[in-house]
Every structure is written in structure tokens, then in C-alpha cells.
């Protein structure tokens, strides 16, 4: 089975990269813009700013009054959203084909002329919204503070992955209008963006509209480089969080290759061998046979500046995480000693093939074809990377997974975090085991 996205690529004089993919199966078109800026471009004291800025992008621009961005799109039968991570910020609109021009006009206006109508009230309201997003997803959510605790332990303070994309409450409060202007001028410029259009549109029509609306957006200065210090841990570490939870949970993390780098695919396959399916090694041991866990997950979380391999086990009530940690290490040792068998690899690769075909069913939205083209262009340096991406997984064999598990996990330092019910620090995993 083949995965493929046909596309036409061109670049405007101001540096904007453009990708067009035609598929008239439905009378709809997906517009997708990636800006190559994320929380790794932030500076200490202003964490969370890239994401706060994403919110401000929906609040109107020179020719689009506040509130009209969404009103116009919804009135045309469209929907839209955006997201921010460590490396990039993306925005998309899914619209009936007749509303493509509207969507491009809106995207172009905020790419070129966002600051003309920027004011303190827009910033203050979205700051409040984002602080509530943080409360909802972090402070008021079980285990919600685990990931930022883990990132802070895995990366030194001057590493751009040290802080979570949502940022800290104090830094969100500190953000100013001057920060908005400076960030826009530095990062929101055509040469730092990629525009993908996928669906019911001809290449000619798409090109004509893009040139009309984006052609005269001024080019910007070069993007400042992000310095990435070596994050290697010099010893194993253990942390404990008490939370309003009933089931204890264990996180174990190792440094891993960057996204699309050598070894990234092997570790993703390893994660699935450990956790996907009932006979996956950790699921079988912890959930099925010994029944000391409620659920397990394992896999990579990889970005441009490096990756993590994370094993997460939610234990049954009152189960000691020392015992869970012991079983995880036993199973990992088995993998890097003997390697997985052929059937395990075959099952995992079949699942990955289904995931590829499934994601590419949609032209727009998060993970749809337009978003994929941009991701491959920005992060893999080749918009047509999808075949090679799947080939990475298809070429994986047991020995490569074994060797990678040994070098990245077996011979490396790790950080272990226990999230336990209040006053139950006795359940936490320790270094003594």
C-alpha cells in the first residue's frame, strides 16, 4: 500500500513557501499556515509567549475588525483553529471551496498587518483566556503538573525545552504589548512561514490568489538562531509530586534523537512494542498478568532540538511504584538484551501503516494533508517526505530496535517521576531499587 500526497511547490519573492495539493473529492478546501516559531524561541521570563501570541492572531488585523475573523469564516461555513508547540505554530481553516479567497485574505491580513490594530485590551483578554487554559489543562487536572515537572528535570534551565509551551502564570502576567510587536516583527514574516492549500482547488487558481494576497507582504530580517545546550543527564534522578489523585502514576524519561533523526523511528516502534495491544510487553506484564497497573503508554515525544522517550504507567490503587519501576526495567532489559521478535515488529508496522492512511484521509485540520505537507517542509526539509517517512518505519528490524534501545535507554541516564495521592509519598519510586 502506498502513501502519497501530490503537490506543487513555489516560493514568492518575499520568501513565502507555498504548497498546493488538489483533491476535488469533496467541495471543500483546507488552508494551513506554519510559522517556524514555538516556545523554544522564547526567552526566560516570557515563557508561554508563543502560544499567547497564537491567541492574539485571531483577534483581528488592519482590515479585519476584532471578532470578525471567526464571524466571517463561520458565516461562510468554515471552521478554523491553531496550535503551538516547542517548534512551530500552525493555523488552519477548512472552508467550502467558494470561500478559499476569504480564508486567504484573512491569513494574509494577519501575516502582514496584525499590529495596526493591536491594543492592550486584546492582549489582556487573551492573557486571561490562556491563564484559564492553563488552569483547565494543568492546575485543575489530575496529573496536570507532571509533564512540566518532567521537562524541567530533563533539560537544563538554558535549554529551550526546559519549560512547557503553555508557560508559567508569572510569565504570562509579565507579557507586554511591546513583546507582541517585537515577536511579530521577528518571527511572523513570510520567509519564516509555509502556506499549504489542499482540496477542491486548481493549482492555477490557488497560485493566483496566493500571489494576489501574499505577494506584497514585506520580507523580514533573518530569524535569530536558537542555542541548544547539551541536555545529557549526568546521573539518574527521582522526583515526587503529590496530587489530588487516587491512582499513583510513574513516568520514566530518557533523552532520545530529534524528530526524523537516526533512531527516532526505532524508538517509536519500541514504544509501541511496549504498550500498544494487549500482548505488548509492558501491558502484558503490568496490566494483564500481574494486574498492578491500570494502563501503560510508551513512546517518543520528539522535536527539532531533541526528543524524549517516555514510559508512563498508571498503577492500581495503593501499588508501590517501586515495584512498577522494577518491572519496567526488567522488560526494557529484556528488549535490549534479546531484541523483539519478528511478529512484534510486523504488528507494530501494520498499525503505523493504518495510522498514515487514516491521517491522510482528511485534506485539512490538524494532521490532515495540508498540515502534513507543511510539517514535512518545515521540519524534514522536504514537503514530499511522506513516503520516506513511512519507509523509515517499514525498514525497522528487531536488531535495530534492540541496538537503539540499548544505546539510548540501557546505557543512558534517566529521570523518574512519581505522582502519588496526597500524603502517600511512601508509594513513590526510589533510587534504591
Amino acid at each position, binding site marked *: *500500500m502506498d502513501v502519497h500526497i501530490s503537490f506543487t511547490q513555489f516560493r514568492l519573492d518575499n520568501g513565502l513557501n507555498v504548497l498546493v495539493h488538489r483533491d476535488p*473529492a*469533496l*467541495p*471543500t478546501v483546507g488552508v494551513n499556515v506554519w510559522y517556524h516559531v514555538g516556545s523554544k524561541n522564547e526567552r526566560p521570563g516570557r515563557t508561554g509567549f508563543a502560544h499567547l501570541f497564537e491567541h492574539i492572531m485571531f483577534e483581528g488585523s*488592519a482590515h479585519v475588525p476584532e*471578532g470578525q475573523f*471567526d*464571524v466571517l469564516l*463561520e*458565516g*461562510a*461555513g*468554515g*471552521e478554523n483553529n491553531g496550535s503551538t508547540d516547542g517548534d512551530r505554530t500552525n493555523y488552519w481553516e*477548512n472552508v*467550502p*471551496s*467558494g*470561500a478559499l*479567497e476569504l480564508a486567504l*485574505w484573512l491569513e494574509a*491580513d494577519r501575516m502582514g*498587518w496584525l499590529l495596526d490594530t493591536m491594543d492592550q485590551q486584546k492582549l*489582556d*483578554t487573551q*492573557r486571561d*483566556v490562556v*491563564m*484559564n487554559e492553563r*488552569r*483547565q*489543562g494543568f*492546575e*485543575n487536572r*489530575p496529573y496536570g503538573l507532571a509533564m512540566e515537572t518532567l521537562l524541567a528535570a530533563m533539560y537544563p534551565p538554558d535549554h529551550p525545552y526546559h519549560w512547557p509551551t503553555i508557560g508559567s502564570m508569572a510569565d504570562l502576567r509579565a507579557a507586554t504589548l511591546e513583546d507582541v510587536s517585537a515577536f511579530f516583527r521577528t518571527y511572523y514574516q513570510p520567509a519564516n512561514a509555509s502556506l499549504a492549500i489542499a482540496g477542491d482547488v486548481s493549482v492555477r487558481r490557488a497560485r493566483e490568489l496566493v500571489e494576489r494576497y501574499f505577494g506584497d507582504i514585506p520580507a523580514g530580517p533573518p530569524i535569530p538562531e536558537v542555542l541548544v545546550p547539551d541536555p545529557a543527564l549526568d546521573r539518574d534522578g527521582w522526583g515526587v509530586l503529590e496530587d*489530588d489523585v*487516587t*491512582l499513583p502514576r510513574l513516568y520514566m524519561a530518557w533523552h532520545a534523537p530529534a524528530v526524523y533523526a537516526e533512531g527516532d523511528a526505532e524508538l517509536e516502534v519500541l514504544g509501541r512494542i511496549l504498550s500498544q495491544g*494487549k*500482548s505488548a510487553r509492558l501491558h*502484558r506484564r503490568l496490566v*494483564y498478568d500481574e*494486574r498492578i497497573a*491500570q494502563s501503560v503508554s510508551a513512546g517518543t515525544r520528539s522535536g527539532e532540538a531533541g526528543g524524549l522517550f517516555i514510559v508512563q504507567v*498508571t498503577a*492500581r*490503587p495503593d501499588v508501590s511504584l517501586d515495584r512498577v519501576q522494577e518491572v519496567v526495567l526488567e522488560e526494557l532489559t529484556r528488549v535490549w538484551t534479546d531484541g523483539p521478535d519478528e511478529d512484534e515488529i510486523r*504488528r*507494530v508496522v*501494520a*498499525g*503505523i*501503516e*493504518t495510522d498514515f*492512511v*487514516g491521517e*491522510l*484521509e482528511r*485534506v485539512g485540520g490538524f494532521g490532515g494533508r495540508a498540515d502534513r505537507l507543511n510539517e514535512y517542509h518545515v521540519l524534514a526539509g522536504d514537503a514530499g517526505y511522506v513516503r520516506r517517512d513511512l519507509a523509515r518505519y517499514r525498514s525497522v528490524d528487531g536488531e535495530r530496535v534492540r541496538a537503539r534501545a540499548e544505546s539510548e535507554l540501557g546505557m543512558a541516564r534517566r529521570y523518574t517521576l512519581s505522582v502519588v495521592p496526597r500524603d502517600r509519598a511512601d508509594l513513590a519510586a526510589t533510587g534504591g531499587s
Partner: protein
Amino acid sequence: MAAPDRTVVPEVGPARGFEAPTPRERVLANGLRVWMVPTGRRGLGYAELLVRGGASTTAADEAGLATLVADLLDEGAMQGERVLTSLEISDEADRLGARLRTAATYDAITASVEVVQPRLPDALALLAAIVVRPTFPGEEFERRRSLQVGRLLESRDETRWMADQTLRAVLYGTDDPYGLPLLGDSGDLAGLQRSRVVRYHQRHFTPQNSILIVVGDADSDVVNGAIEDGFGTWVGDTPAFVPARPSPPALRPEVYVVDKPGAPQSEIRVGAIGAPRSTPDYFALTVLNTILGGAFTSRLNSTLREEKGFTYGAFSRFQLGVRPGPFEARTAVHTPVTAEAVSDILAEIERLRDEPVRTAELERAKRYVALRLPRRFETAAGRGGQMSALALYGLAPDYFDGYVEGILAVTADQVRQVARRHLDASNLVIVIAGSFETIEAPLGTLNRGAVVRRGPP
């Protein structure tokens, strides 16, 4: 090229025509209806077996049974003469790269599979085995029941879940499955025996009580052969058991708070018993909900998020079921503004009853709903899901042919009428999961009755 006049909003061209797929129906000799739905060349294949009933067809002391039945389907089955264990079923699905899922809702139990099209016949064989001939091994029963108790414990740590379930309990009472968590409660789960699972399967999993949706190549002999082989010999004709339902409890003028001391946010629900999916008000209710809280620019989100910054988002929905399901307006707000947010939600609902919607807002809502119809059919699972909803709620296979017209015909008058009919002030209840100590006094000033602490569902 000359720069465009950016002060002019580009005109939106006419929408290209779209025809929703209409399933081709065939009926197997045993009475099983099969809907074949065409799919695109490049997408996945999908199959779903839907059994009517779900949690609604469990007795008062069987809370959580439908979920347990669904979870146990793929924990052991017969395929021909082969006995498949839990791990063998999982491995077989994984070898096919198939996403095999089972789930219970308040109205149905479904088993579905998503897979690359060439492997759809093999996936259908596996789907048939777990649905028609599950073995419910005793050891797996104990394991799944224990995991379900664990999921219940996890859910109870979530403020959001607490608010959702408490709203159902207040609206329907706890003698009605619509008022209980799908996961059940620890007490009932502890008392459930394996024999209840077997009996549920015997009573409800029959060809007459089910429908099979297949999204794939409808003309493929291999696909059709797999359907016949897997489901053709399925027998069972015991009439489905539908327990009597108590009338909903009388609502009291009280504000219910599930206490979570120190919570930084309050999870707010303003709800009512809404309507069944079969309501003749369906189109008007859909438009009403879009205006109130179904979209980003809806009134609730515009006020509570975009104007006041109280929340990350505020929405509303009618969960239209076989029976009248709950309506809810929902949001999570910063704790200090809880009472003001509740007051704003009530005011927005009242405004829909009292004031006609203005034309621009009405047209935007209608177009938002009608013109997004094609995208519901973009994926194989999306197509299948749309079709299985038609089957469950007794709507015609060509139902979507009149959908866009139906939505676009809704008037401002109709919106106000259905607001009055379904969102009467006397039917609305207020449920909050949050810090009781902090929000009790401000909520008291709303004059919506006593603010009472309520135990977890």
C-alpha cells in the same frame, strides 16, 4: 501583480453541490440489515456492528453492565472451530493493522474496525467473531470488572466528569440509566456476575436488534463473502428486554455543588432534559444550539471567553438520544467569577426565549451547520458513524438529502419557539464542581434557591 484592495471582504462563491452517500441496504437471511457505503479510493475501510439498547436496557442494579459487555466482547471468542483468547484477538487485530474498538453508550453497544481496505475482509471476520460468538471467559470477566472499577476511580478525580455525571443524576435520578455513569458505580460493579453479561448478550445481540454498516468497496465479492461468512449464520430471536423507566424526579430550586476544596476553576453545567433525536424540532434545535453555544462565535463563548476572559471556552449541546437526552451549557471558569458566569449563562438562555435572533446571526449559524455537512463524510469512520446514527434513531438512509434545506429553512420565530419549548426556566438545573467554601455565598446571591453540597456520583 497589483496589490488587492484589502478593505473589501472577498465575496464567497456558491457552494459546489454535494451529495451525501446513500447506503445500499441488503438483508441477510437471518434478518440482519447490512448497509453498504461507498468510500474513496485512498481512504481506510470501516465496519461497525451496532446493537440497540446500550445502558438503557440494563436494570436498576446493573449500572455499568453495558460497558462491561462491550469491553468483554474482544476478550475471548470463537472463530469457526478456533477458540481465540483475549491476547490472540488483540494480536490478530494488530497483525491486520486494524483498530478494533468496542463501546457502550446510553442507547447502543457498538463494535467497530478501521483498517486499510485490502484487509477489510479479514477484519470483518474478526469483528463477526467477537460480536456473534464471544466466550466471556471467567478470568477475563474478573479482570475487566476490576479495570472498570479503576477507570471509575480515575474519573472521579476529574472535576469535569464529576460535573457531567452530577447533572445527569439530578435530571434523571439514579433509578434511570440515563442518570447513571456508563462506568457504573463501585457497588453495582462488585455485585455483577458473569451470568448477567452472558444473559445481556443473549437477549440483545440478535440479528434483528442490530445493523451492520460497511464502508468499503460494496461490489467486492471478497467483502460481501466475508459479511455472509461472518454474520450469515448468526441466530437469536429473543425479544430485546426494555425495562420500565421511572418518571424523572421533580426538580427542586437548588444549586448543586460537588465540592473540590481549593479548585482553581469551577466546572459549570446548566442543564435540562432536552429532546429525543426523533424530535420534529431537530433542525430548529440545531440552529438554536449553534447560536447559543455550538460554535466558536456562539453567544456563550463570545461573552464568557472573548469578552470577559473568564474561561478557555464555553459551549452547549443537546445530547439527543433514543429518549430525551440532556441539554447542557458547559464551561470551566476561574473560581472567583463562578456566580457571574452562571448568571451570564442563564441570561443568554433567557434572551433566546425572549428576543428574536437577528438575521445576520441566524444566517451565520445556519450556514455554519449546513455548509460543513460534506466534511462529516471525509473519513471512512466519519461516513460509517453518520450512517449508524441514522440507523439507531430510525432515520431514512437518504435522510441527508433534505438536510441542508432543512437547516436553511429554519426561521427566527422557530428558534424562539423551540427555546421556549425546550429551555423553560423552570426546567433548568445548575450543577457546579468546584470549591464549595469559595463559591457558596456568591452563588446564593443568584436567587436560584439554596446552594447545597452534593456527594460524588
